[in-house]
């Protein structure tokens, strides 16, 4: 079945899209080294947004991978990671700011036209403001296609794992409630070069699922978040 919507986001750009509950967002790395810093909001109440700490601690994970459920501040399963070619998507090291982009030299629209280097913060805020949102609505993002490992040492030292994603890598997110998805394809802030890639966004019709769904059976916590999502409007 062909997607309901297909949109390629070029490298270093930002995008937002409203997605109906039940549909599937497929993100595809179109270049090696792509990164996709992604924010999620419940479309019916945008104060209720992705909460990475709650998502990680409820599922005892330091990374995002299938079949985890991405949870909101107020205990909703916002989206399920129904599949991915990668077993690790970073969620603990944030998105790039202007200071990260400026490491690679000055850049502006005036000098570089649409090739100018814009940070993830620049792009995410630009998209958030289109929806009446702003800096207060920034929260910890998921950096799809990027990996930042932690050591087992007392300090928990971070290690940037370069070359994690290759062109063709993908992840699918099933919207559990109506979602506002806001994303940036700017490089990960730990990427040592201004290397990033384009990301394909496809919205597909989803399929009904039951109690045997992998995200339902993953953990009791995941199942409870999905059940809460069904009770948003009673």
């Amino acid at each position, binding site marked *: 079945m062909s997607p309901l919507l297909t949109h390629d986001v070029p490298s270093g750009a930002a995008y937002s899209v409203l997605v109906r509950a039940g549909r599937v967002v497929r993100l595809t790395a179109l270049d090696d080294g792509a990164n996709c810093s992604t924010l999620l909001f419940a479309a019916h109440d945008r104060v209720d947004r992705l909460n990475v*700490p709650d998502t990680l601690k409820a599922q005892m994970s330091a990374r995002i991978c299938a079949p985890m459920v991405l949870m909101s501040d107020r205990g909703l399963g916002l989206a399920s990671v129904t599949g991915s070619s990668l077993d690790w998507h970073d969620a603990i*090291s944030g998105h790039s700011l202007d200071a990260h982009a400026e490491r690679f030299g000055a850049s502006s629209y005036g000098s570089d036209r649409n090739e100018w280097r814009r940070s993830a913060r620049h792009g995410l805020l630009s998209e958030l403001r289109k929806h009446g949102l702003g800096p207060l609505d920034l929260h910890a993002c998921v950096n799809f296609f990027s990996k930042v490992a932690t050591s087992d040492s007392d300090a928990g030292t971070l290690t940037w794992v370069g070359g994690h994603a290759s062109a063709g890598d993908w992840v699918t997110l099933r919207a559990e409630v109506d979602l506002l998805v806001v994303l940036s394809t700017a490089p990960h802030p730990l990427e040592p070069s201004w290397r990033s890639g384009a990301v394909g966004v496809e919205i597909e019709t989803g399929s009904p699922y039951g109690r045997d769904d992998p995200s339902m059976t993953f953990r009791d916590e995941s199942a409870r978040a999905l059940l809460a999502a069904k009770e948003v409007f009673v």
Partner: protein
Amino acid sequence: MSAALDTLAVEEAVLDVVVEAGDGFVGTVPAGGSFRIVDLNGNQAADTLFFDAHDLSNRYSAMDTIREQGAVYLTTGSKLLSSNLDLLATITGDTCGRHDTVGGACAQESNVIRYGRHTRHQHACRETFVKYAASIGMSARGIPHNINFFMNVPLTSDGGLTFADGVSAPGKYVEVRAERDIVVLISNCPQLNNPCNGWNPTPIRLLGWWQ
């Protein structure tokens, strides 16, 4: 004023309050001031946020702090950064060893997810956060991911996360130096369902030194 720990006499503190289990605190620490949180009875999570006192949208950012220091845990020397990468405070003293900033704050709704529907009406940190935040004109929208002082949440190299006990003990403390005028917002965690408070939430003491 630098904050050499052994030079700060408790009797000279300009702030000295005890926060009961399940209660909170909001207050301002001027630039250069030292602010200490004492775990009076041990194994008590102090969920803490810092804000630029002159721009509450310029607020503590867990993920920016982790990335810029290149390490997951907070301890002496950790620079606590805002969402704009401004330095809000530096940890100048830590007799505990390390502190979590990945695990966030408990909420009634996340308790339901983690422990079941019967916990829906148990008191939780985010109830305290929104109450004290409201007193300075801030809503839930303005509350970011926090620090859990005295809490031990080990991350593993294979991508795991666990809640562990036993890093803190009675009388251990953490101290920060305000690097600009900051607002401190604290929830003294009421969680009963995991070991973050040793299964028994207890008071913390807040001490401050400034001109």
